[in-house]
């Protein structure tokens, strides 16, 4: 094994924590495109950084942005060049190893989550999200899925509202009234 290489050897074994994957000598599907995208984006940002204060002085507000975007552009171009010279990994495809359907689907789920969060409220959106994603991932019966969803939702909701007192969008569910009702019950019983 290449001593410089600390990525995962057999496809993301769950150990990654800012430890990158990739191959030291070969390029994965889409890697060249990604590098080219980074180069383009960096050049655009460099142009934008130049627009902040131009080459006015070294202590101008645009100085550090220009320096960093210049570094980004140079390194991204260098990476693109190096990547272009490498051979492709033949055993992998973009659709299977880099961006499989599940991942695309989950990016979609998360986007929808963001859209629905404020109008629907946290509890309903989260319930919907957990229900769909656990069903998709676990492929078990609806009884199992609904049971797990409700159990995890209750735990999360209790932790957020009670332990961390995080304010979450209430949406259409009368959450505050429910909490009040619960409080009344408890104080009534005491």
């Amino acid at each position, binding site marked *: 094994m*290449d001593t410089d290489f600390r990525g995962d050897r057999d496809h993301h074994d769950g150990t990654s924590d*800012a430890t990158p994957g990739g*191959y*030291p000598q070969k390029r994965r599907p889409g890697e060249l495109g990604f590098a080219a995208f980074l180069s383009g984006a960096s050049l655009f940002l460099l142009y934008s950084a130049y627009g902040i204060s131009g080459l006015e002085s070294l202590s101008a507000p645009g100085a550090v942005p220009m320096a960093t975007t210049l570094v980004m552009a140079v390194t991204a171009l260098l990476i693109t060049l190096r990547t272009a010279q490498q051979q492709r990994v033949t055993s992998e495809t973009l659709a299977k190893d880099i961006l499989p359907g599940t991942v695309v689907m989950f990016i979609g789920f998360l986007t929808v989550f963001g859209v629905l969060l404020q109008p629907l409220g946290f509890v309903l959106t989260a319930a919907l999200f*957990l229900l769909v994603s*656990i069903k998709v991932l676990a492929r078990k019966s609806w009884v199992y899925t609904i049971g*797990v969803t409700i159990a995890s939702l209750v735990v999360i909701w209790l932790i*957020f509202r009670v332990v961390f007192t995080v304010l979450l969008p209430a949406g259409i569910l009368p959450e505050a009234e429910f909490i009040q009702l619960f409080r009344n019950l408890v104080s009534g019983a005491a």
Partner: protein
Amino acid sequence: MNMDTLLALLTVFTQPQLLVLVGIGTFAGIYIGAIPGLSVTMAVSILISFTFSWDVYPAISLMVGIYMGGVYGGSRTAILLNIPGAPSAIATAMDGYPMAQKGEAGQAIGVTTVMSFFGGLIGILVLAIAAPFVSDFALTFQPRDYMLLAVLGILLVGSLSSGSLVKGIFAGAFGIAIGTVGRDPLTFTERFTFDLQIMEGGISFIAVMIGMFGVSEALLQLQNVTMKAVRQKIDKIVPSFGTIKKYLPLSLQTSTIGVIIGALPGTGGDIAALMAYDHAKRVTKNPKVPFGKGAMEGLVAPETANNAAVGGAFIPMMTLGIPGDAVTAIMIGALFIHGLNPGPMLMVDQPDMFWFIVGALLTANVFMLLFGLTGIRIFTKIVEMPRSIIIPMILLLSIVGAYAVNNSITDVYWMLGFGVFGYFMRHYGYPLGPVILGVILSRLLDDNWRRAIISERGDIGRFFEGVITSPLSLTLFVAVLMIFISQTPLWATVKKRLFRKAES
């Protein structure tokens, strides 16, 4: 040590609430560190937003516990399942798993726990002794020194955490650029806002962190949902005093390695553990069991080193405001949010804060020992929790975490964007640590660069004159240069020659 210091150190013990929080944090940290796919960086970055409304002491207590427990927790799964729960436990798996296969899992866990405690203790001691000196020394730093130190930290993370330095530099520069978005705090000039109002306040660094370490990791995990765990038989856990005494000399050496590596800006527990493992292999002449087949030395070395690195990593973080690794970068973010400004002035203005953190670390270390030697049977059950439930939970927590800080949906979208971007970065071998370091250090770097250059009246020649005439600046500057030179073909030839000479 005067009375005030001692009182600050004991804050944790005088307030039961804090003690409980450190305990909960450590306990949770052990499990988070152990469950593959959950990481300490992920947990702490999500927690920042949830503890946002808390007082600073309770928030720090919880996070310190998670950090300490998490570094240790990775070893459990490394031993039991051959899957390091955290990168700092990669070396632990090499000898820990073979021991478990031979039915010595309990013994392996026992020794690992005690040695982690020992390493952690040494790290904290060094932190307590060294930090005040470093902080005194740091008061003499010029703005240019801070700037150079920040650059050095980002470069080190970039060069050591992965194979490709160029990718690391790109990641670091990208992080700094993210940090400059919004209105410039000094002149109020808009930077990278593209005339959009939502960009004026800048990009929330918490959204960046959660995206990079929470969402991207969870997306990556989607590709191996159906991983099965292997059960191990657990025997006697608490190791005998004789065993501990036998490995004491080695553990002292590897703890020292851990503290030093941890204290270097940019290097953390994972590198310390690998270096300590290497060291153990070199100094152990006749191991009872060969390395890689279940040698006890192969467990002692990385585990003492990675826990010693925790104390070490706090030294540059608390005294210079320069994080030692991704987790400490996030800890700095947490301190920022609570209105604290890590750096030499912290030790002058709020020494209590420093001693409180030392006390919390010590407590977390003791809790780690307690929880480490108990509850292994329940542990194996929890670690086997199906990923089809864990992944949706991580994603849910990430969204809520990003939303909670500013109650803003925009932050959720930033987080998603950085999550997807980080996902591709992971796939293509770009390290994420430098991005976070860049974001955190951006302000410090920008401020100090401008201060340095203004004090030289905008003359770059005079700036370099200043660098060359000050021993400290020169050392830092040479170190930065060395990292670049080490990546050029020139260095490879020089290294080859040197090594050939050494061998002959």
